[in-house]
């Protein structure tokens, strides 16, 4: 079947055959790993169980967007929104490699369709909409698809009246989409205001790295802003600054802990505490119906939610796997393009 029409150009055509790849086995470099800080080695299973945080030294490894959703959500999982949006190639862009080829490589190496996954889920019993970025897909860069999915997620959360949770991990705007990628900064900033109008809170979690046009747009506009330990948070990266100004930067330049001291974030939160922390603040700012009316109920509820973190962490791999299987298309699904 070829719903993806014929009056589109060659690069669309080449991309069309890629379709879904989530169902294929994926190997990401961080499946098993050695901690760059303390040299401890972990198996893929240990990494997953430890939420990709080194138990010895606390180093935070990269996490894919879908694994993030498993970490944040409830057993029972999440519903992914607009998984089918794909990049176009408006500039017919080629640097050392054609853009279409970079996209194809990113799709096959990550099993993702783009650098952001939007989903509906519950975080510690609070229904919300989440937009989670994935650095492994072209450096988490923001092109038209990231901008569009983000904007739709804002509008959807506003329409449902539920909180919006954003996790950023991005090098900034996607160079290969040129000026139109820059414009996604504007699109996302404006879309966030739908949530202000709906009077629902926006929680932003800054993961490593959050730089460039993503930091200078939606990522710096959270109502509550948490950063993961060690995350680089900056508009200009250290290399650019050193080259432009000849400044010698401290080794912790732009890191989460320093940005906390600079007043740029509300707290640095260990990934293993993240879901409970979000649940707690959402319980205060956006208690689910029925919780708000009881004086002090929210607090008690928040403590329960926080206490649940251990239990949830133990049970999530199995439950999450089930959830994932539930939402992924089975192989041979005809969205492949009928080939």
């Amino acid at each position, binding site marked *: 079947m070829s719903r993806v029409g014929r009056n589109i150009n060659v690069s669309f055509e080449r991309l069309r055959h890629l379709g879904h790849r989530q169902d294929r086995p994926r190997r990401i470099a961080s499946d098993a790993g050695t901690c760059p800080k303390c040299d401890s080695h972990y198996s893929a299973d240990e990494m997953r169980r430890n939420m990709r945080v080194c138990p010895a030294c606390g180093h935070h490894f990269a996490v894919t967007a879908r694994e993030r959703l498993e970490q944040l959500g409830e057993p029972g999982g999440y519903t992914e929104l607009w998984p089918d949006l794909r990049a176009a190639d408006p500039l017919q862009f080629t640097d050392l490699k054609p853009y279409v080829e970079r996209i194809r490589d990113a799709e096959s190496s990550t099993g993702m369709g783009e650098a952001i996954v939007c989903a509906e889920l519950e975080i510690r019993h609070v229904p919300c909409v989440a937009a989670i970025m994935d650095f492994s897909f072209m450096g988490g860069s923001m092109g038209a698809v990231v901008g569009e999915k983000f904007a739709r997620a804002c509008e959807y959360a506003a329409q449902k009246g539920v909180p919006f949770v954003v996790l950023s991990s991005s090098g900034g705007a996607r160079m290969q989409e040129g000026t139109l990628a820059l414009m996604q900064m504007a*699109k996302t900033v404006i879309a966030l205001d739908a949530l202000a109008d709906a009077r629902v809170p926006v929680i932003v979690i800054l993961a490593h790295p959050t730089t460039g046009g993503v930091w200078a747009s939606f990522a710096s506009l959270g109502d509550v802003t948490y950063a993961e330990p060690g995350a680089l948070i900056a508009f200009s990266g250290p290399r650019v600054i050193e080259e432009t100004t000849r400044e010698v930067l401290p080794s912790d330049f732009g890191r989460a802990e320093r940005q906390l001291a600079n007043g740029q974030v509300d707290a640095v939160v260990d990934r293993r505490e993240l879901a409970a922390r979000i649940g707690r603040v959402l319980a205060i700012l956006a208690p689910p119906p029925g919780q708000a009316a009881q004086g002090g109920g929210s607090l008690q509820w928040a403590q329960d939610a926080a206490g649940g973190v251990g239990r949830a962490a133990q049970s999530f791999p199995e439950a999450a796997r089930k959830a994932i299987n539930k939402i992924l298309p089975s192989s041979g699904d005809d969205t492949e393009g009928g080939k």
Partner: protein
Amino acid sequence: MSKPDGPGFVRRVTGKLGRAPEPQVDEDLWASIQLARHAERPYTLDYINRICSDFEEMHGDRLFGDDPAMVAGFGRFNGRPVAIVGQQKGRDTNERTYRNFGMASPEGYRKSMRVMEIANRLGIPVITLIDTPGAFPGASAEERGQGGAISRSMQLMWRLDVPVIAVVIGEGSSGGALGLGIADKVLMLENSTYSVISPEGASAILWRDASQAKQAAQAFKPTAANCYRWGVADAVVPEPAGGAHTDYDQAAAILGQYLERTLVELEALTPAERRTARRDRFRRLGPLRDPENGMAMVSGRDTPPPG
């Protein structure tokens, strides 16, 4: 040369994979990009002083300091009050340093926001003049929240009830340019550029070789005419023959005509109508493929800019 990432290497690899040969650099495009940042090009204050019969410049963000890379104030334009803000470049070495090459710090955006807020309260239209290689990349700027200054400037511009016009007068690069770019109408001077990054920056990042600026420019094609086609610009403002630097008075007079026409058009709308159109204008930008809707979503126009 033995550097593996040099142009020779690129040619060899692309040749081997049977792809199109290295794109020809369009010399007209490169010339236009060079004109956008010509040393004699009129800068923000050159336009303000010619467009406005009177201009009162404001200083300081009331939080930390005053940023000379950003000019902000109130003036009279064709008999009506306007607020004008814009990045300011310097002409000679001293002034260039003083103006920090038109690279604004958070204080610059916050000063500009302060002026826009006053304008909004007093019902005065806002005009921004964009001319920057980017926001200042420095540790001090980062510590004081460069990212948040830019995002909040965009947020404020989107929220304004008064008419907002943005004009790219020279070089509009990166988020530092877009920080002044959320407007009802975006005009671009004929030889201005609007790009996600400067050609030199792109060259260093994508080609891993700072000398590939021409090729980067060719790949980004960030000219006014292309921005019009993409829907990023709403009008292209002609420049005097040879470029705006050949005749400041004429360049400013033409810009004044375009601003007047655009203001009249915007003043006919209600604040709510303007804001809805402003949101939709940016919401549309960025082509992608959406199988749900059966087709690629395409922004932009098929026609070249009029005139």
